[in-house]
């Protein structure tokens, strides 16, 4: 393995979160992003099927993760535990925010048909959504978006990894803003 790949391997091993391409490139000022990308590809194939961990592209970065087939055994031994599952209300709220971001609380309430304030507070607390900007409307409402942690807990490479709305069985164009008369 080239020395750049070894350096990346060490950094990814040391980090407890996904590292982005820019972060990895900062390790070696002489190597360009293209070289880092190549080295990452080498590293991923070097791990291939021969190891219990693999290099995974996740949350706009890279991370070593254990292979799925060992999850149960590791959990039974209590070396690591699967995170608690998100409630349906939390997933609903996340789905709306992921596709409509930046989006305000009123719009989330309107789509879900229920008050979502408490759920959104919880999601902010868990670091899955955050205030990204303020809206133009009355009172300049806080607008929310998803965080890198959101992509991380879903194992998304990036937000484009979410299914496209046209791919869903209930295809629906993004509705026009609510300015139509009642």
């Amino acid at each position, binding site marked *: 393995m080239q020395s750049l790949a070894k350096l990346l391997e060490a950094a990814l*091993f040391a*980090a*407890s*979160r996904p590292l982005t391409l820019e972060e990895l490139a900062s390790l070696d000022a002489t190597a360009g992003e293209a070289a880092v990308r190549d080295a990452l590809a080498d590293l991923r194939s070097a791990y291939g099927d021969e190891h219990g961990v693999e290099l*995974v592209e996740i949350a706009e970065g890279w*991370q*070593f*993760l*254990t*292979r*799925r087939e060992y*999850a149960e055994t*590791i959990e039974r031994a209590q*070396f*690591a*535990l*699967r*995170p*608690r*599952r*998100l409630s*349906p*209300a939390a*997933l*609903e709220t*996340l*789905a*709306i925010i*992921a*596709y409509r971001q930046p989006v305000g609380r009123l719009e989330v309430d309107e*789509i*879900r*048909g*229920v*008050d979502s*304030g*408490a759920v959104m*507070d*919880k999601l902010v*607390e868990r670091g899955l959504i955050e205030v990204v900007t303020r809206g133009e409307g009355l009172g300049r409402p806080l607008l929310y978006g998803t965080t890198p942690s959101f992509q*991380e*807990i*879903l*194992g*998304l490479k990036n937000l484009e990894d*979410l*299914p496209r*709305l046209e791919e*869903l*069985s*209930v295809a*629906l164009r993004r*509705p026009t803003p609510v300015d139509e008369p*009642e």
Partner: protein
Amino acid sequence: MTATGGFVVELDKFSGPLDLLLHLIKEDEVDITDLPIAKIADQFLSVIADLGLNQAADYLEMAARLLRIKAQMLLPRRLGDDEWEDPRAELVRRLLEYQQIRELVDWLGHAADARAERFGRGYEAPPPDAPPAPLQIDLNDLLAAAERVIALIPEPMLHRVVPRPLDVEGATARIEALLAERETFGWSEAVGPQATLVDVLSTFIALLELAKRSSLMLSQSEPFGPMVITRAIPREAA
């Protein structure tokens, strides 16, 4: 719990009124874009009544909306009226949108489950549940909540308590009159006929008081035997 429609619905299953509506639509296998609004509205009302959800504002608001659409559908319209706008249109749009969200929820749930089977380095045990965030409510919310709680408080049961002071002086006078007449007499004579609880207590305290003052002597031939009251031999003043 069984709703009148003959199917089983559980409160926890629904994350809101739209979810419940979708459930009813699926149960009835009706076309979402041509909603039989009268039927769905009736089912919605009976289910929220059965589940006790008719107190929840979100569900009530939807119930009101359904009834309004039902009424609008009954209004006559002229044939070939191009101006006519289906009163269900907005609801159908929202239902379709919500159905899409539900589909995304399934997708996100599966993605999260798959990700949860891979552990990264630096595992940390999940933190315990954080205490609930401080409440953010305005005065009107608080007052409305207080009124709901107050409405649940049952009417208190009131009892009138009448003070009935013991008539120790009266009993003392009666016993002293008896003592003046007779040297010895029994409890039943001291209490008098048809004695109430108050009379019994008054007489008993009067007897003890008189015994303390050495005006009389109390004796019983055996434990729990009838009480005999005897005039005390007056002592020389000390």
